[in-house]
């Protein structure tokens, strides 16, 4: 995180220098209009998603009352009663109007499967996902960028070959398989390796959340899943960073920097990396938007009750309100992350404001 923050700042500083003459006057007016148009665009996308989220899941095959009730002795009247209770007997258009009204007032409906308000359910499931996927994305971003920088700087060297080969191998392994492997080796224990970590879950049964031991306990539980995801995500960032830094290596300004007498590390960190960071930053920022969609396979293997799993399990019912709710949360997060990235670009580079 610190590296990214610093990089953005550095990048901004440099582009300001470059473009100082072209964008010195009338800056606020143009940027204000730019912000407005971007926000309106984001609002438009949100409204579209709101409509889509309703109809997308209604056209799916399946009848919740039947899926949930199979194997239970129920009469047609009982199925009707269920549909009446949860508003499924209303005409589609009526349901849509109710959905719009409720969603705009912050009511996401009641889950057909768990029979609790969807907003409670999403809040409950949100923080395990953010802890798991957010931590992994940031760790993978930081380590990946570092690997990419070192690899590109000493391209073809031993480090480059090992890190590129290693991260590609990890990238091509199925996440669930890597997860199961880690469980077998580091959770159960294999040969001389003791089973130090739990096989899954988010906390021990007698852990007290909110205390120091509770926090440590959750960290202990999340170690293996975060490790798995970090390793799986690593190649994304390492390879992008490596190739964009390679593009910079032949540039004249690096020769100038060397001619000034800067040390190799300074040339790398203060000039080459700063210019090469933008693509990797974009990927990390976008991935952060996708954090709330969760990591379904890892949530399954490590039994972590996250949003990804909530949405996939809701598909089989289909639990309309949970699907709509998770879809809305996920799309809003991506739209907001995009908006934030756009606004930041506009601030950093006036050329994109057209």
């Amino acid at each position, binding site marked *: 995180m610190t590296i990214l923050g610093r990089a953005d700042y550095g990048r901004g500083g440099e582009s300001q220098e470059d473009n100082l003459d072209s964008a010195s006057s009338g800056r606020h007016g143009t940027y204000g209009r730019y912000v407005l148009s971007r926000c309106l665009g984001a609002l438009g996308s949100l409204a579209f998603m709101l409509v889509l989220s309703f109809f997308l899941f209604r056209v799916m095959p*399946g*009848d919740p009352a039947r899926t949930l009730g199979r194997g239970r002795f129920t009469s047609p009247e009982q199925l009707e009663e*269920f549909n009446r209770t949860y508003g499924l007997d209303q005409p589609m258009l009526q349901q849509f109007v109710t959905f719009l009204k409720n969603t705009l007032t912050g009511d996401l409906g009641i889950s057909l499967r*768990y029979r609790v308000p969807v907003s409670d359910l999403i809040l409950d499931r949100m923080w395990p996902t953010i802890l798991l996927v957010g931590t992994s994305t940031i760790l993978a971003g930081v380590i990946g960028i570092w690997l990419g920088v070192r690899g590109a700087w000493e391209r073809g060297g031993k480090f480059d070959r090992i890190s590129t080969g290693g991260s590609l191998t990890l990238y091509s392994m199925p996440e669930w398989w890597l997860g199961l492997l880690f469980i077998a080796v580091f959770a159960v224990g294999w040969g001389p390796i003791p089973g130090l970590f*739990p096989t899954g879950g988010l906390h021990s*049964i007698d852990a007290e959340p909110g205390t120091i031991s509770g926090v440590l306990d959750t960290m202990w539980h999340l170690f293996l899943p975060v490790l798995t995801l970090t390793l799986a995500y690593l190649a994304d960032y390492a390879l992008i960073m490596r190739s964009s830094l390679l593009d910079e290596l032949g540039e004249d300004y690096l020769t100038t920097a060397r001619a000034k007498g800067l040390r190799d590390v300074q040339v790398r960190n203060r000039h080459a990396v700063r210019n090469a960071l933008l693509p990797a930053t974009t990927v990390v920022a976008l991935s952060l938007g996708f954090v709330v969609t969760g990591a379904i396979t890892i949530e399954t293997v490590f039994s972590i009750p996250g949003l990804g799993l909530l949405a996939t399990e809701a598909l089989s019912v289909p639990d309309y309100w949970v699907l709509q709710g998770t879809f809305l949360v996920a799309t809003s997060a991506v739209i907001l992350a995009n908006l934030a990235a756009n606004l930041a670009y506009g601030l950093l580079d006036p050329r994109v404001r057209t």
Partner: protein
Amino acid sequence: MVLPGALAAPSQAAEDDPVTFVVGLTNEVDSFNPFLGIEAASFEMWALTYDYLVGYTMKDMSPAPALATEWDTSDDGLTWTFTMRDDAMWSDGEPLTAADVAYTYGRILDGGPEAATWSSYLKGVESVEAPDATTVVLTLKKPNAVLPLLPIPIVPEHIWKDVSEKDIKSYAAEPTDGQPVVGSGPFRLVEGTAGGSTYKFEANPDYWGGAPHVDEVAFRVFKSADPAVQALIKGEIDFVDNLSALQVQSLEGEDGITATSGDSPGFDEIAFNTGSVDLETGEPMGDPNPAVLDPAFRFALNFAVDREQLLRTVYQGGGKTGTTIIPPAYPDYRLELDDPDAFAFDLDKAGQLLDEAGYTLGSDGKRTMPNGDPIGTLRLASRSDSETSPDVMQFFQEWLGELGIDAEVETYESSKLTSVILDGTFDAFEWGWYVEPDPDSMLDYLTCGQRGNWSDSWYCNEEYDALYEQQHVEMDDAARQDQVKQMQEILYRDAPYLVTAYSSVGQAFRSDRFACFQPQPDPGGVWLLQYGSQNYLNLRPAADAGDCDGIATAVGAVTGSGGSGGTSGGSSDDEGMSTGAMVGIGVLAGLAVVGGGIVLMRRRATVDDRE
């Protein structure tokens, strides 16, 4: 949490530690509210928290005394009188009386979400009354032979009267403000939420059925079975459910673990579209192949299913070969045909029966319809979310091919298949049913009235329906059993279903720590997730197993030796916790060092910059 004394493990010190029995579930609780939940795991939670008016025997799940110690039916079958025990208490100290039972059933009779879940069990019941504290009277419009099967958890009136009809559809019935849920069962829920990953129960020492032998029962939800198996091997959990036959085999060799494939009262079947119709107009609907509409054609295919091979290869030896829709767990109602070859794999016989029915082989080696038209290709639907379903249909396709009938296997999600079945756009599909301790519901699914509801084969036979109505009101057990067997004979002949296998459920537990699981049905059944909560009262630390209070069939009823392994039970959890804390501290320390290093390096770098 981490007691130094636990390492020395003298047996007295161990008694001070709470004994926690941890169950790994692969099926989560959908609601702790007994009027809303549906999943098998939810039934288990209610069985721990609440009581039934009438319970189940371990032998064959027939009615057994629970809150009601005895019951009586009037001669016309229209009045049922239950006499209740007077020593049952709610966990908040209030007495549990007949009024609570009347209140619970009353809520269901009043309609609403409660009725959506339970009203079929009170079919024909007009009113329920509690004339005194220990008597419950059900008045019926029409006799109902299913009674006294009443799997409805009794809830406390003094708590639930505050839950309005409007609120109940999202009422969670979970612990609030640290207060356990008020129930009358052997345990009470102290922590947990539906869809959560752990649930914790504490023992009710004053339970009318005797105090449990463990202090706590905890459940951990696993999203897939493999990690649960690993957790059992490691000892993080003591019990795991829903294993495949292969997983059971792999666990059988592990030290300290006992595993079984227990009979579960359910079956899998290949079902046919016996005639989908538009229920309003009575016109045929969908596009079934005309061949599968013919009972003679379907009956011939009964001999084209190698049930032994399916059991061996597809089910990996777990379960039993299938015959009729009533599983072996319910011998009283089950039809046993005298002919030993009634379900034999015999392609010659199948071919001969097809020839007799007019489906003769054409010159191209394919069978034709009696009028000479080609049969075409039968569509065999399987479920993508089942491990066995596609394989069963692949085999069936091969056997049909050997008979000269073309078929193709289609794969659907279960929810999609449900709508395909309702549209009648299929020829055959593979699915299964779980059969309740009373056969009525299973028999009902094949009546004409269930078409468009739960009937998936669109089967309709007036003779069968007439027998169904008879048995539903027949109060004489022997006569009813006879009628139920006749119905199964009709099904054998008409073959809407070819029952392929009786399912089994793999379960395993740490036999070095716990003992005294009695199978249900006994023998050969499952150890937990049964009907009722009996085994949560039976189970105890392996060291204290003794003769399991004289339950001869209980697993782990030790005779003499075997105390040495048992004492480690309580302490290993504590070790696990302290390892956890240590690793957690280690990770934190590691992060601090790395973070500190980065800060130092950055400071050095900025110093360089400034110079």
